[in-house]
């Protein structure tokens, strides 16, 4: 195999025009796949940027009489659940709000997360700089003008250490930046991230109607603006937690028969892409993954078909060499393996180009999207092991797609040795001609059109 690869490198280096064209075609095909895989991997498979994600669940409030109906939670209900539940080691609450962020005359829309004070501790995420919110900053109506900004916000300010402690205008009101989230942190979502986190106490000041039809005060039990996430106790499972949560909901219904009427609590895995009160809201989104990958593979397939044609043309020019190898005892598989090795070297070169192209184009796309999208995009486009493994996989897949067919066809010179090696004498004949050289001339003399021999 090493010998085959060495010969492949030698062959390709002797045909720089072909190699450059082939690598470019492959780089485009593999690059698209790498970029799409990077997106799909981040969205659906990469571990989220918080601790022990398997222990985290989202709590949903379901209507017992109409199980398809769900709603959020009020702050008082959140407090009751946090204090009375027996299944979570801790719970936190949050909601997203669209806020105006920036200086006078330079205000832009941005997503903010209004969170309970234990938001970062429940997620197990230490801040890059500064502190998390204090319990007293959570109290509704206290209006604590403090904010935690994202790492990319800090990056936009050139990682200036004085950002911590400085003021930022949110909906025209000054907030003091007390913390900066770590790099790559996107809250509970993947890719789309809030740019600023605010304490629950300022909810009434900054919240808009995003995610709720009727705006109510934070301490109103009839309001339902919050989503609740809980970290299950050690050894606790979602199934085991179910009766306890149903009991808790029943107790709350007894205590607050109007506000909590017909409500029960269920858990579901934390959604990576949706902020919804309905656990089924994002259930169909995963089907996007195979669709996206399928579209990318089609691009790779088109690239491979182009390359297969190029290899076929090249293989035709090398039929004499292949015929000699077969005559010397090389089996067809051995010849195909050698041609596959050449394809693999091409695929590796194309894969390297595709990786660079894919990551570069992803960075370019994210950079351009950041300019006009109202949310932060947290997408690590670096070449992590999953991306490298996937790119290598695309190289292998590509090799099989573009090199196997031509390899098999070009190695099929059985019985044609003399026709191939003396092609100058039989060049005018069609591919189906299989006569040895002396008979070629005989056949020509007899004005025959021989079709097959051996």
């Amino acid at each position, binding site marked *: 195999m090493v010998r085959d690869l060495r010969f492949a490198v030698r*062959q390709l280096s002797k045909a720089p025009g072909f190699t450059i064209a082939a690598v470019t075609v492959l780089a485009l095909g593999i690059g698209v796949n790498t970029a799409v895989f990077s997106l799909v991997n981040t969205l659906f498979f990469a571990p989220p940027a918080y601790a022990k994600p398997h222990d985290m669940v989202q709590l949903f409030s379901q209507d017992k009489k109409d199980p398809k109906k769900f709603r959020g939670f009020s702050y008082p209900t959140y407090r009751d659940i946090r204090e009375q539940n027996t299944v979570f080691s801790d719970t936190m609450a949050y909601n997203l709000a669209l806020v105006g962020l920036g200086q006078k005359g330079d205000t832009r829309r941005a997503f903010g997360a209004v969170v309970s004070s234990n938001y970062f501790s429940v997620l197990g995420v230490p801040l890059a700089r500064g502190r998390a919110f204090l319990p007293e900053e959570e109290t509704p109506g206290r209006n604590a003008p403090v904010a935690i900004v994202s790492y990319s916000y800090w990056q936009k300010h050139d990682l200036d250490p004085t950002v911590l402690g400085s003021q930022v205008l949110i909906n025209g009101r000054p907030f003091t930046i007390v913390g900066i989230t770590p790099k790559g942190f996107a809250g509970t979502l993947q890719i789309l991230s809030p740019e600023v986190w605010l304490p629950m106490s300022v909810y009434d000041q900054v919240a808009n109607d995003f995610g709720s039809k009727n705006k109510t005060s934070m301490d109103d039990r009839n309001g339902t603006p919050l989503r609740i996430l809980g970290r299950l106790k050690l050894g606790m499972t979602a199934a085991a937690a179910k009766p306890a949560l149903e009991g808790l909901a029943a107790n709350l219904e007894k205590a607050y028969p109007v506000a909590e009427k017909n409500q029960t609590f269920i858990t579901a895995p934390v959604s990576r892409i949706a902020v919804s009160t309905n656990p089924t809201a994002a259930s169909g989104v995963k089907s996007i993954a195979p669709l996206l990958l399928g579209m990318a593979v089609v691009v790779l397939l088109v690239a491979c078909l182009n390359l297969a044609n190029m290899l076929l043309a090249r293989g035709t020019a090398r039929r004499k060499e292949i015929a000699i190898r077969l005559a010397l*005892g*090389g089996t067809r*598989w051995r010849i195909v393996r050698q041609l596959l090795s050449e394809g693999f070297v091409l695929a590796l070169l194309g894969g390297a180009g595709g990786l660079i192209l894919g990551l570069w184009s992803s960075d370019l796309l994210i950079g351009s999207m950041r300019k006009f999208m109202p949310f932060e995009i947290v997408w690590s486009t670096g070449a992590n092991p999953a991306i490298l493994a996937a790119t290598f996989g695309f190289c292998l897949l590509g090799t099989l797609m573009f090199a196997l067919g031509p390899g098999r066809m070009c190695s099929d010179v059985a019985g044609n040795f003399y026709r191939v090696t003396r092609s100058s004498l039989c060049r005018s004949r069609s591919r189906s001609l299989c006569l040895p050289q002396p008979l070629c001339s005989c056949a020509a003399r007899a004005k*025959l*059109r021989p079709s097959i021999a051996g």
Partner: protein
Amino acid sequence: MKSTELTAEESTNEFDGNGFAPLIRLAGVTKVFLTDEVETHALSGIHLDIREGEYISISGPSGCGKTTLLSILGLLDTASDGSYALKGHEVANLSFAERARVRNREIGFIFQSFNLIGDLTVFENVELPLTYRGTSASDRKALVTAALERVGMAHRAKHLPSQLSGGQQQRVAVARALAGRPAILLADEPTGNLDSHNGEAVMHLLRELHQGGATICMVTHDERFAQHADRTVHLFDGRVVEDRIAA
């Protein structure tokens, strides 16, 4: 000179006069190329025994079937009918992969146009059949070096074929055929692309190899070179018309 035309009875005997099976035995071999309207009989009922250590030349006019016969002997092509036994084993109906294996182990080819692979060095060209055989690297090195020394080309081992003269290329091709110590060397017009001086040198080399015990079957249309062999088989219109053993 003794002239014989083999009959079917003689050729299909399992043992020769000394009680040994011949290295190669062709019995009733025919080769027919099918065309749209016509059957072209390239070989018709060839009976031929080649014994170990023999040096045989096959000659005849252009288009008489020499190369077709050599292709069948070298398992590069299959006969339309008849049997072909190599070392006592029937090989006419082997699969493509089995024929490749037998070809690799038992047959060494020397071609008119050398057929060296231009992108491989002299050493790598000679090494190629051994690589396909699965010979270990150290054994390959020893065998290739010995073969190149035998043809006087060891000093050009790192050169590419394009850096060699025609005569040198043919000597490398001989080394490639020899390296695997095959049962028989098949030479197809080995002097056809060489000037007379180099042609004589190659014939001298083949003679030396034969004297060293090699079995050689050479196709040539040049009577001068045919005389180098101990036995001359003459083909005409796909039939053996003369089989002479040098006195």
